[in-house]
């Protein structure tokens, strides 16, 4: 059986500098996979390749049996920098994405959809505000609504909560996981937060350091869902995985700071 999202022997170089070397990944439908590694290990480049924004030097990415050669709304991206258009309202930021991605929808359907997803992330009251009138957490909510509203096959998250404070971060993680559980969406998330990776993922892919980064190990997270953060962090499984990841990242892949 073939996996839903397959990364085959992806290599990528910028000039003579090899970023990624022989990356192979198999991701099942509805799976939540995190990619973790030190900064500069090329994990964001891999996400960009899956998104179709970067063409790999060699290798290929196949989604649902079809090779990826261009960006598209079936692989919605949530960027660390939110990437909302500051001159458009919250509503228009989502609306224009939906209208562009799903051209067959009528205006009424577009509006209903935008309304539904803004409601889902609890931003209905802020629909007429511009992004710079919102907090970082709210902006990322808009970006999440925008990505979900086009009903993608795969959600790609590039350090989505990296710029947020710890409290906002955990609230948004809870919301994301609730949405994920109710939609059976396939998620690929880049992170360098070990706890975040364990809390959210089914599988954690550890990247070795660059240049020529490759998959160092894949860790299965078998903690049953729904997970409750306060209880999860006390379980043996959690501590085992955390220690294993820490050992990888600090000892085996450790770098002098």
């Amino acid at each position: 059986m073939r996996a839903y999202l397959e990364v085959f022997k992806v290599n990528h170089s910028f000039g003579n500098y090899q970023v990624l070397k022989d990356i192979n990944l198999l991701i099942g439908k509805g799976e939540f996979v995190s990619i973790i590694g030190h900064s500069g290990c090329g994990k964001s480049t891999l996400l960009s390749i899956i998104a179709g924004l970067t063409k790999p030097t060699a290798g290929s990415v196949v989604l649902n049996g079809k090779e990826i050669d261009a960006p598209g709304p079936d692989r919605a991206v949530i960027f660390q920098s939110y990437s909302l258009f500051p001159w458009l309202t919250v509503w228009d930021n989502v609306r224009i994405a939906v209208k562009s991605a799903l051209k067959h929808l009528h205006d009424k359907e577009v509006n209903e959809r935008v309304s539904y997803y803004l409601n889902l992330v609890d931003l209905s009251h802020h629909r007429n505000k511009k992004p710079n009138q919102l907090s970082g957490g709210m902006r990322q909510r808009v970006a999440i609504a925008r990505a979900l509203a086009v009903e993608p096959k795969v959600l790609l998250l590039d350090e989505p909560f990296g710029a947020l404070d710890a409290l906002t971060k955990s609230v948004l993680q809870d919301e994301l996981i609730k949405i994920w559980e109710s939609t059976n969406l396939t998620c690929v998330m880049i992170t360098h937060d070990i706890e975040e990776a364990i809390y959210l993922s089914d599988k954690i892919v550890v990247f070795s350091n660059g240049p020529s980064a490759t998959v160092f190990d894949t860790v299965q997270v078998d903690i049953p869902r729904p997970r409750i953060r306060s209880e999860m962090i006390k379980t043996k499984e959690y501590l085992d995985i955390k220690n294993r990841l820490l050992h990888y990242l600090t000892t085996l892949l450790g770098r002098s700071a």
Partner: protein
Amino acid sequence: MATKTIRLLFYPKAKNIKNVWVVAEGLILPFLGVLVFILMWYLISSTLAGQLPSPMSAFNTLYELIENPFYDNGPNDKGIGWQLFYSLKRVFLGFFIGSFIAIPLGIFIGLSKKLSIMFNPIVQILRPVSPLAWFPIGLAIFQASNEASIFTIAITSLWPTLINTVYGVSSIPEDYKSVAKVFGFSKYAYMRYVALLCALPFMLTGLRISIGIAWMVIVASEMLAGGTGIGFYIWDSWNSLNLNKVISAILAIGIIGYILDRIFERLQRRFAV
């Protein structure tokens, strides 16, 4: 509100006194500056340069001119208001023509790296040329000095807006481009919601620079063209050796230039991201 004002007046706290002083400073200091300038002018006109009118006589003339700005005693004797009106008309006409060419062209060039590289040298060579050098070309094309002035202003307004628009469009952040690609924005949606709005503050900067230069250039251009306009008025006043009128015209030009700049500054702030 009223009670608050009364309270402030009768029971001023130290903080409020300080605020009053800050406001007063904002009014007094500029006033002092103007006073120093007039004093210097007076000293120079009464010692070094006797032919220069004193501030008093210049302000007198300015007052007379402003009192009746729109009189019309035939083609050779019109009020300063008319002259400024003719100049403003030419400036706006030229400015609109120039901007009308510069903005679409700038977007077009800015969207393509190849076009930017292609047109960069020609823009860089023509940009530093004094707009007045274009005046004879305008004359040759239109066979009329009024149209030649407007042509000169259009050329003047072209470069700053063109360069800023190209820059604005070509410096759209990579993240915005990625979003447009991921969500499959059409070319139209990309132009309408990303490129245009992203470049708008840059365009407005270009337009503000353009209108400033255009207002400066019109004076010189009308000196060459003759007939009507504030530039012609200055030259005409000089020929009849009326320096009071020259200085009055200079002050009027300055004030209108300042107002134009403030209008565009407002626009810039309105659309700042």
